[in-house]
């Protein structure tokens, strides 16, 4: 690959990484495994970039490369993990509006940033422990002397709060009513 192609790949990949990652995570659920598959996919995309047709959909191309790795992963992990049924995965794929996701991705990220700042200290710390430190819910429960069920309830509340906040913020931005 020459330098121009490399720069082209980096530009395309940077714009689409989150979307391909979302697709993979929605199909395998485990964040660490999704990251592994993402890296494998990225490596494969880099190697096969000369086969990519300029002007075509880079995200769709990346997803098609990821798809086989996902099927392979599920086949090998099915004894150790629970997965959804195939028809449910297909339903999720059919629902996935990549164009809308691309279009709103930056706005959602900005909205989330604002919403995170408004969380109280305790909730922020919980998120930091999990997302920043990679500590599982079970370990958080043990560390804080709480039940795992209790931690799930707290995390569910926090995620719902953030999800609602993002929705509210986007709606207001759309209505031009939020300053």
């Amino acid at each position, binding site marked *: 690959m020459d330098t121009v192609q490399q720069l082209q790949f980096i530009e395309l990949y940077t714009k689409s990484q*989150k979307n391909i990652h979302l697709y993979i*995570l929605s199909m395998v659920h485990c964040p660490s495994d999704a990251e592994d598959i993402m890296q494998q996919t990225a490596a494969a995309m880099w190697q096969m970039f000369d086969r990519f047709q300029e002007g075509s959909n880079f995200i769709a191309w990346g997803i098609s490369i990821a798809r086989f790795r996902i099927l392979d992963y599920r086949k090998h992990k099915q004894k150790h993990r629970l997965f*959804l049924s195939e028809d449910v995965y297909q*339903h*999720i794929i059919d629902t996935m509006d990549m164009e809308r996701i691309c279009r709103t991705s930056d706005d959602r990220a900005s909205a989330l940033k604002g919403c995170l700042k408004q969380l109280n200290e305790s909730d922020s*710390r919980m998120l930091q422990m999990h*997302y920043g430190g990679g500590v599982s819910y079970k370990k958080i429960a043990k560390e804080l002397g709480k039940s795992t069920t209790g931690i799930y*309830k707290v995390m569910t509340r926090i995620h*719902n709060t953030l*999800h609602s906040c993002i929705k509210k913020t986007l709606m207001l931005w759309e209505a031009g009513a939020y300053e």
Partner: protein
Amino acid sequence: MSDRTEYDFTELVLLLIQGDIDREQIAVLESLLRSEPDAATHYLELLEMYIELSSQVSAEMDTINGGASQYDTFLQALAHEEKVAPAVEICPPEEYTHVDLRTDIPRWKFNKSSLISVLVSIAAMFFFAVMVRFLPVNNGKEVATFVDCVDAKWADSNPPLRQGMRLTDRSVSHVLASGFAEILFDNHASVIIEGPAEFQLLSREQLDLFYGKIYAIVPPEAIGFIVNSEAGKVIDLGTEFGVDMNTNGTMELHVLKGKTILAAGGESDKTTQEVRAGFAKRIYGRTHAISSIPCDEKLFVNDIDSKDGYVWRGRKQLDMASMVTGGDGYHPNPVLGKLDLLTGRRTGFLHTGKPDKPVGYQVVASFPFIDGVFIPNRGDGQIVTSTGLRFEQCPETLGEAFYNISTIRKIPVEGFEDYTLALSDDSDLSAGIMLLHANSGITYDLSAIRRYYHGFKVVAFETDYGFPTALYDKLKNADAEALIQSPDTGTVEFYILVDGQVRRKVPTMSIRKHSTPGTVHIPLSPQDRFLSLISTDSNRNNNFDWLVLENATLILEE
């Protein structure tokens, strides 16, 4: 998706991501994904948020240096653990050496006296076994089930009761040293006991209360349920009632629903009375005299839920003032303060004036039950919810406000004494209060509240409202500032909106006309999403337009 379903769905997705989901839960998740129209979209939005959180929170963590946060300490401990934990050596199978576990066992030395001892012991054991097998032992008959408890501590002599345990009518009393316990009798009468209390189950329809408080909920099929005490007996006729038995022998009966028969006295001087809902009686232990007393529903805990830690006393209601500063409405919120109308955040500042430009609706993201706050003014096309619903009938106002909604009873006013806000001299100063100085508005998110208190319906909003007594006192003061004497001063309107629609407009209140405090009660339905409380100046003058809400509550039902 309904609020409850959305909550459960999020929890299932988190379980899925964490790898903690079980077969039953995954089946539920699949069912939701198949049947709920927006479940798949919600699933993807949650995952998208998960990815973004991983990116944003990690980035934030990278900029944190030093500090001794609990999280840092925890990570350091984990890292240290990894470094110092001894290495585990795994031997390949061929390196295991065979260990002979046989040991020398001394031969038992036999003699006559030891043989006799053994034979006697065996005979005694045999005799005991026969005794246990054939002699009748009264274990009692099962009459009730132990359902639930919150913070229950049992006296040492009693084994702790566990949820689901069956209870018998054997002649042993139970002593609840503190906390709350719920028992369901086999006739379907339910009893909540508040410690300290001692009680005994006499049958599937009778309870002896030696001391303590109990609250009984008796359905029609359990009519005739009896609570005995030293002072008297309560026979239920299909009701809810509370009994408070004091250690000095005095008993109180408070009937909240239906009716009961109260029997007091011994064989020669027994008296019986019917006691109906809303009435209460006290029996004096020594004399068996019965007197009427006020019925107080708040004396008794009538529902407990160990899953969420709820202990409901009296009517199930949530304090809306505590929600203004982030409380959940159930637990007392020690954090008093103000909600800033300009930013939607908690503030300590008290400032006033007109903003340079309209600030619009401020979403309050940090307090889960508050949707947003605003300064109402028709000219700004007043939006009253985060979904963009408008208050079409919003009047023209000054567009000025004291820039916050306050929950503090004492407010300082420059040049004057601190005011204590209360609607009357009898106000319970420990109860929640909100000052909505015109022009201000606050919107509550009823959906969020329903999600949090899943299992309950929000059936009504209720509040007392009016001017604080301190303002009237000011009027009486001959030295009162000219400002407060102005006819334009102290007139305010109070609107209550549900989903942007006016449900109640309280007639304009005026200090000069000595408007008296009032009460509003607004029924709510499961479809109602937002509740907005708004104060407006009625005449483009907001001086001393102090609208105070006391006991603003949301009423819940199961």
